C-alpha cells in the first residue's frame, strides 16, 4: 500500500479503467422514477426493516417494472421516434483475448496505454435503447438486449439461464478491470511503504473485501434488477465508476449510506458535513474524498469556504463519537477550535438585518459581545429598540431584552412588530400581548398613548418629562412575563454603560486579526527608526516588559564598555602623539613619559586588557555578564584625569557619535549592577534588543477630531501594529521583506544628518550615507512585495540637521548640489516669527523641503505614485506622535478615496502635501 491507495486521485480515475463503464449514468437516467417508489417499499418510513438493501431487491424490482410499464416504456421497445440528431455509438464485441490486460508493465517504461473507451454522450432524453444497455458497454450487448424483455415478463429460471451468459460476461469485464487494478497494486507494492498498508483506513483491497461481504451497492440493484442477490461474485473494484461526482449526479444515494463509498446503512456511524449535509462513514471521513484535513472543521473538501447550514450552528465545536474514535484528543481539540473560529463558519453579518439594515462586521461584533447578547442569533430580520433593549423578529412581539444603546442597525419602524393596538412604545406599535402586559402592570392604555420606555423600566408619555413609573418594578411581574412569553430583563443587562467603549475589551479570536493594520518601519542602522518605534511605544502608554528592559540594560552596559574602549584607544593615540611631539622638540629632555593622557599602572593593565578583549572578538562572551566585577574599576577609570582629558577632546573623534556622551557621562551609574534604565535611557539607547531582532507593538491611535466625526470614531476599530524590521543588514538582499505583504503602509526612516556623513564599505571605498540611504530606499520601494503600498518617508533627526546646516551646507552631498537656498540676504530670525503671519521658512525647513522633493521625484520615477514625507525628531515624543497621526490619516484618506472613487487624483496631489506642510508649520509655530 502506498500513498496512493487512500484517496484515489482524480487524474488516475479519469484515465484508468473507469471508462470501461461509461454507460452507467445513462442507464440510471433511464429509470429515474424507480428510486422514490423503491425507497417507499423498503419500509414504512424510518421504521422499516433495517437490512432491507438486498432483501428488497425482488419486490422492488417487480414493482418498478410495473411502474415502468405503466409509465409507457419498457426496456426493449423498438425505437420509432424521430431520427436522432447524433449517431449512436455502437459497442462492438470485443475479443477478451485481445484486451491487453495485466501484462506487467516494464518498470521504467513510459505511460501505459490502457484500453479506455470513451463514454457515451449522455442523451438529452431517455431513450429506451440506451437505457437497456447494460453497464458493460465494452461487451457486445445484443444478447443482453434480447434477454432483457424476457426477464421482464418471465422473471423465471429460464431467463436466468440466458442471463447467466451475460452475467458471466459482466463479471468477465469486471474481472478485467479488477486484474488491472490488481496489477496496479502488485506493482506499487514494490514501494517499501506497502508493508504499512494496514495503517490506511480505506484502501482498494479493503473495499473489495467489504463488497463481497455484506451489502451490495444499491446502484447495482437499479441496474440489474433481476439479479437476486450478490451471490455471483459480481464484485466491483473500487475504481469502477466510484467517483463521488458520478455518484452524486448519476445516482441517488441510498438513504443512510455513506456519500463516498456508498456503503453502510443509516445505523452505521457517520459524520455529516456542516455545509451540505453529506454524510461520510468512518472509513471515508478522513480521506480526500471526504473531509480530508478539515481546515474548517467538519466540511467536505468541496464545501471548504462556504458557509455552514444554520441548523448545524449548534453543532459547531461539539465533537462526535465517530471523530473521537478516529482521532486523538489533541487532534479533536485542534479541529474543534478551527471549526469554531474559522471565518467562514461564523455568522455572516450581512445575513442579519436589524431594523431593515444589514449589519457590518463591527456591528456584528458589538452585538455578540455586549453583556447581554440576543440568544441564539440566526440569520433573519430583526427589530431592535435601542432605548429599552427590546429585541425581536420582524413582525413579532419582543423576543428578549438585550443590552440597550447599541449602535446597531437602522432606525426602529412603527410597524416593526406588526402591532395593531395603536399604542406605541419608543415609536413602535406594540402587539396585543404587550398591551395585556401593560394593562397588568398598571400602565394606563386608554386613548392609544405613546410611551418612552428606557432600559431600566421607567416609562413616560411622549412629550412629557415626568417619569410615570416602572414597568418591571412590581414583584409579581417577574412571574407574569414568562406567562405571556414576554421577555424580562436579565440582571446583567442593567450595566449597560460603557458598552460602546469596546476598545478596552479584548477582541475575540476570530475578529482579532482582521481589524489590525500593520505599519512597517524600515530604516538602516542609525536612521532613527528604532527611536521612533520606542518613542511611539512609550507615548501610547505601553511600557517595556521586564525582559525588554533587561535586554536594553545589557545593551547599554555593553555599549558603555565599547565606548570606554574607544576612549582608551584614543587616549593611546593622544599619548603617543604628545610623546612623539615631545621627542621631536626636546630630544634630551628627561621629563619622562608623563603626559596628561597617561594612566596609573593599575588602570593601565585594565585598559590594556579591555582593548585586547575587544580586539580578540570575545567581547560579547565576557560582557556584560562580568560587569559587576569591573564596576569599581570603571568608576576609577572614568574619574581618572587622563580619560577626562580624552573625553574633552571627543569632538575630534569621528567614531564617537554625539549621542554616546549621554551615557558616557553617567557611566558610573550605568556600570552598577542594580542599574535600571529609565525611559529616557531606553529612548537614547541604540536599538531595541541585542539580537537585532524584529520588534512589534500594538497601538490604538486615537482619531483626531478634524477629519472624522465622533459618531464614526466609535465605530472604527483603529488598531495598528507598528513593526520595526531588523535594522542591521537591511542593505543586503532583503529576504524577509516578502513576509510583510500584508503591511498597510511602509514607513521609511532616513536621518537628515546623513548628508555629510560617510562610511567605509568592505572594499575601503568611502560612501556618503545619504547616497547609501537612497540606494536602500530605491531597493525597498521597487521591491515587488511593496508594489501597491503607501510609503511614508520620515526624515528624522531634524534638530541635529538644523544645527548641522550652519556648519556644513546641504550641497556638500553630491545628490543635493543643486540646492540654493533663497534666504541669503537676511538671516533667519527665530524669535520674531510669531508676529508676522507669513514668515519665511527657515533654512532648515527649506533644506528639508528640498530633500523631500528630491525623494518624491525619485519615488515618482520608480513607482509613478505619490510619496508622503514628514520630518521628525526621534527624541521628541510629540513630533513622533504627530508623525504617527499623519500615517493614520494617510490610511484614512486612501481608504476614503478608494471607496469614493471620483476625484482621487486631485485629492492625492493636494491634500497630503498640504498637511505635511501644516504639520510642519504647526510644529515650528
Amino acid at each position, binding site marked *: 500500500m502506498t500513498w496512493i491507495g487512500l484517496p484515489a486521485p482524480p*487524474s488516475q480515475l479519469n484515465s484508468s479503467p473507469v471508462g470501461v463503464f461509461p454507460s452507467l449514468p445513462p442507464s440510471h437516467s433511464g429509470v429515474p422514477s424507480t428510486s422514490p417508489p423503491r425507497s417507499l417499499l423498503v419500509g414504512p418510513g424510518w421504521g422499516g426493516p433495517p437490512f432491507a438493501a438486498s432483501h428488497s431487491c425482488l419486490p422492488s424490482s417487480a414493482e418498478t417494472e410495473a411502474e415502468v410499464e405503466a409509465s409507457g416504456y419498457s426496456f426493449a421497445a423498438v425505437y420509432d421516434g424521430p431520427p436522432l440528431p447524433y449517431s449512436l455509438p455502437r459497442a462492438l464485441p470485443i475479443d477478451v483475448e485481445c484486451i491487453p490486460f495485466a501484462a506487467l508493465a516494464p518498470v521504467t517504461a513510459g505511460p501505459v496505454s490502457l484500453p479506455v473507451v470513451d463514454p457515451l454522450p449522455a442523451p438529452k432524453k431517455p431513450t429506451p435503447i440506451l437505457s437497456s444497455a447494460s453497464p458493460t458497454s465494452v461487451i457486445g450487448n445484443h444478447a443482453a438486449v434480447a434477454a432483457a424483455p424476457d426477464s421482464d415478463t418471465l422473471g423465471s429460471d429460464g431467463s436466468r439461464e440466458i442471463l447467466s451468459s451475460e452475467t458471466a460476461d459482466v463479471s468477465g469485464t469486471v474481472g478485467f478491470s479488477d486484474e488491472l487494478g490488481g496489477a496496479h497494486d502488485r506493482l506499487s507494492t514494490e*514501494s517499501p511503504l506497502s508493508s504499512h498498508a494496514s495503517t490506511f483506513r480505506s484502501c482498494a483491497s479493503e473495499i473489495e473485501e467489504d463488497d463481497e461481504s455484506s451489502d451490495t451497492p444499491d446502484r447495482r440493484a437499479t441496474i440489474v434488477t433481476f439479479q437476486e442477490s450478490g451471490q455471483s461474485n459480481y464484485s466491483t473494484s473500487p475504481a469502477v465508476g466510484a467517483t463521488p461526482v458520478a455518484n452524486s449526479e448519476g445516482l441517488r444515494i441510498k438513504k443512510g449510506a455513506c456519500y463516498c463509498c456508498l456503503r453502510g446503512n443509516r445505523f452505521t456511524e457517520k459524520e455529516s458535513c456542516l455545509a451540505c449535509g453529506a454524510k461520510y462513514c468512518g472509513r471515508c471521513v478522513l480521506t480526500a474524498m471526504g473531509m480530508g484535513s478539515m481546515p474548517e472543521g467538519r466540511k467536505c473538501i468541496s464545501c471548504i469556504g462556504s458557509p455552514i447550514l444554520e441548523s448545524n450552528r449548534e453543532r459547531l465545536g461539539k465533537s462526535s463519537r465517530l471523530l473521537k474514535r478516529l482521532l486523538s484528543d489533541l487532534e479533536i481539540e*485542534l479541529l474543534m477550535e478551527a471549526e469554531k473560529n474559522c471565518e467562514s463558519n461564523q455568522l455572516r453579518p450581512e445575513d442579519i438585518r436589524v431594523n431593515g439594515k444589514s449589519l457590518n462586521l463591527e456591528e456584528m461584533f458589538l452585538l455578540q459581545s455586549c453583556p447581554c447578547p440576543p440568544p441564539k442569533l440566526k440569520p433573519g430580520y430583526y427589530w431592535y429598540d435601542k432605548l429599552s433593549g427590546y429585541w425581536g423578529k420582524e413582525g413579532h412581539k419582543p423576543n428578549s431584552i438585550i443590552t440597550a444603546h447599541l449602535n446597531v442597525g437602522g432606525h426602529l419602524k412603527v410597524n416593526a412588530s406588526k402591532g395593531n393596538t395603536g399604542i406605541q412604545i419608543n415609536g413602535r406599535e406594540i402587539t396585543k400581548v404587550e398591551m395585556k402586559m401593560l394593562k397588568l402592570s398598571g400602565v394606563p392604555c386608554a386613548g392609544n398613548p405613546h410611551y418612552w420606555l428606557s432600559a431600566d423600566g421607567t416609562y413616560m408619555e411622549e412629550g412629557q418629562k415626568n417619569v410615570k413609573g416602572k414597568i418591571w418594578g412590581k414583584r409579581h411581574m417577574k412571574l407574569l412575563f414568562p406567562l405571556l412569553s414576554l421577555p424580562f430583563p436579565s440582571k446583567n443587562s442593567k450595566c449597560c454603560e460603557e458598552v460602546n467603549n469596546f476598545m478596552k475589551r479584548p477582541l475575540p479570536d476570530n475578529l482579532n486579526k482582521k481589524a489590525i493594520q500593520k505599519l512597517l518601519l524600515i530604516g538602516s542602522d542609525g536612521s532613527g527608526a528604532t527611536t521612533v518605534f520606542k518613542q511611539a511605544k512609550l507615548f501610547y502608554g505601553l511600557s517595556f516588559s521586564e525582559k525588554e528592559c533587561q535586554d536594553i540594560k545589557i545593551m547599554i552596559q555593553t555599549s558603555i564598555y565599547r565606548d570606554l574602549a574607544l576612549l582608551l584607544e584614543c587616549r593611546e593615540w593622544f599619548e603617543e602623539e604628545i610623546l612623539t611631539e615631545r621627542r621631536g622638540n626636546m630630544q634630551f629632555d628627561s621629563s619622562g613619559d608623563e603626559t596628561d593622557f597617561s594612566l596609573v599602572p593599575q588602570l593601565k593593565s585594565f585598559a590594556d586588557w579591555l582593548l585586547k578583549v575587544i580586539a580578540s572578538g570575545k567581547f560579547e562572551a565576557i560582557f556584560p555578564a562580568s560587569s559587576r566585577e569591573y564596576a569599581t574599576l570603571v568608576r576609577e577609570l572614568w574619574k581618572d584625569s587622563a580619560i577626562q582629558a580624552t573625553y574633552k577632546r571627543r569632538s575630534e573623534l569621528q567614531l564617537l557619535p554625539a549621542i554616546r556622551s549621554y551615557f558616557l557621562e553617567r557611566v558610573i551609574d550605568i556600570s552598577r549592577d542594580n542599574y535600571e534604565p529609565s525611559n529616557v535611557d531606553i529612548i537614547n539607547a541604540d536599538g531595541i534588543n541585542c*539580537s*537585532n*531582532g524584529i520588534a512589534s507593538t500594538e497601538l490604538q491611535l486615537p482619531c483626531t477630531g478634524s477629519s472624522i466625526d465622533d459618531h464614526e470614531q466609535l465605530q472604527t476599530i483603529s488598531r495598528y501594529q507598528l513593526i520595526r524590521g531588523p535594522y542591521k543588514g537591511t542593505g543586503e538582499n532583503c529576504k524577509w521583506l516578502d513576509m510583510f505583504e500584508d503591511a498597510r503602509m511602509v514607513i521609511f526612516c532616513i536621518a537628515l544628518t546623513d548628508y555629510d556623513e560617510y562610511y567605509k564599505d568592505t572594499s575601503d571605498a568611502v560612501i556618503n550615507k545619504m547616497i547609501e540611504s537612497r540606494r536602500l530606499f530605491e531597493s525597498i520601494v521597487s521591491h515587488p512585495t511593496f508594489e501597491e503600498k503607501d510609503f511614508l518617508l520620515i526624515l528624522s533627526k531634524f534638530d541635529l540637521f538644523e544645527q548641522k546646516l550652519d556648519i556644513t551646507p546641504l550641497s556638500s552631498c553630491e545628490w543635493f548640489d543643486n540646492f540654493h537656498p533663497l534666504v541669503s540676504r537676511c538671516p533667519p530670525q527665530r524669535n520674531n516669527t510669531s508676529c508676522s503671519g507669513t514668515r519665511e521658512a527657515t533654512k532648515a525647513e527649506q533644506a528639508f523641503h528640498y530633500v523631500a522633493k528630491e525623494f518624491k521625484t525619485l519615488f515618482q520615477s520608480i513607482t509613478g505614485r505619490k510619496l508622503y514625507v514628514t520630518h521628525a525628531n526621534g527624541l521628541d515624543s510629540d513630533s513622533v506622535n504627530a508623525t504617527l497621526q499623519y500615517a493614520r490619516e494617510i490610511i484614512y484618506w486612501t481608504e476614503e478615496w478608494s471607496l469614493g472613487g471620483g476625484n482621487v487624483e486631485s485629492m492625492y496631489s493636494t491634500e497630503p502635501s498640504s498637511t505635511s506642510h501644516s504639520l510642519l508649520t504647526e510644529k515650528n509655530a
Partner: protein
Amino acid sequence: MSVAELKERHTAATATVNSLRERLKQRRQLLLDTDVSGYARSQGRSAISFSPTDLVCCRILQGHTGKIYSLDWTPERNRIVSASQDGRLIVWNALTSQKTHAIKLQCPWVMTCAFAPNGLSVACGGLDSVCSIFNLNSHVERDSIPVSRVLTGHKGYVYSCQYVPDQETRLITSSGDQTCVLWDVTTGQRISVFGGEFPSGHTASVLSVSINNSNSNMFVSGSCDATARLWDTRIASRAVRTYHGHQGDVNTVKFFPDGQRFGTGSDDSTCRLYDMRTGHQLQVYSQQHDADDDEVPIVTSIAFSLSGRLLFAGYSSGDCYVWDTLMAEVVLNLGTLQNSHESRISCLSLSSDGSALCTGSWDKNLKIWAFGGHRRVI
C-alpha cells in the same frame, strides 16, 4: 611598522589572493572537460520518462492561514511540521492529514522549522533572531505549547535550522548575521560559531544549511554572497572549502544521498551539483527562459530522491521541476499537474523513506506527492 605600511602590505596581499583565486578558477575550468550529463550521454544513458500520472498529489494539508515558509519530516516517516506566516507551527499526521499539534508562536515571522530526530520536539526560527524549541509532549498552556528552550545569540534573523541526525541535543542554525551556529539544545549554549569574525566565513546572510548524513560532522551552508561553504563542526575557525559558481543568492543547499556531493539552488534560477571533495561543479540544472521575460523564477528549495537520480526543485513561479540528475533534463513539472500549487513553492522535502514528497507553498497549503502506481521509489 607603521599603519600606512601595514595597509600597503594588506592591499598587496589581497591582490595576490585575488589573482591566485583567478588562476585557480581558470585551472579548474581547464580541468573540467565534461559534466555529468555530457558523460552520461556519451555512455548512452537516457533520461527517465515520466507520465503525468506517475507522481500524483495524494494529500492536501489545509489549515494554515498564512504563507507557508518551511516544513520538515520526522524520520519515522509520517509526521510533518510546517511553519507559516500566520504565526503557527502545525504538526501534521501526513497519513490522516490531521493536525496533531498547533503551536502559536511569540513572533509570527517564522522562517524555518525542524523536527528533532526523535520526533519529540520541534525547533523554529525567524525574524526574532532566536531559535525556539518546543517539546511536543509538554503540557498545553492557554491553547498553545509553551516554549521549552530559547537559543539566543544570533545577531540576525534565523533563516534555517536543522538537527544533527541522531543527536537530539545538537542543532545547527544559519542566520542573517553571516554565521552558522552549532547549539547544545539542553543547555542552550553555543558550542561553536562558524563564520562571522573569522575571515573565511560567509560575507552575507546564510540562508540554508544541510548536514551530511553519512558524516554528521560535515555540513554545508549556502549564503547571499552567492557561495556555498563546507564546514567541519570540529574546526569552527575556518570553512573547509568554498564553492563558487552561482550568480545569485544560494537559497538552498542539500546533500546528495551518498554524502559525497551536494546540490544548491539559487536566485539565478539554476540548481548546481558540486563535488564535496574536489570542489568542482559537476552539473548545472537550468531551464531556458524567454529572453523577453525578465522575471526569472528563483529556486527556493531542493530535495534529492533516495537514489539521487531525481532532483526536485521548487521555484518562485509555482513550478516544481523534477530533474533527472544524470541527464540534466526536466522529466516532470509538478506545477502542470492536477492539484498543483497556485503560488510560489517555498519549501519541499522528501520523507525519510523516499516514498513521498511534501511541498509547501505561499498558497497556504501543503501537498503530499507520491508515485502513482507501478513505479519503484527512485
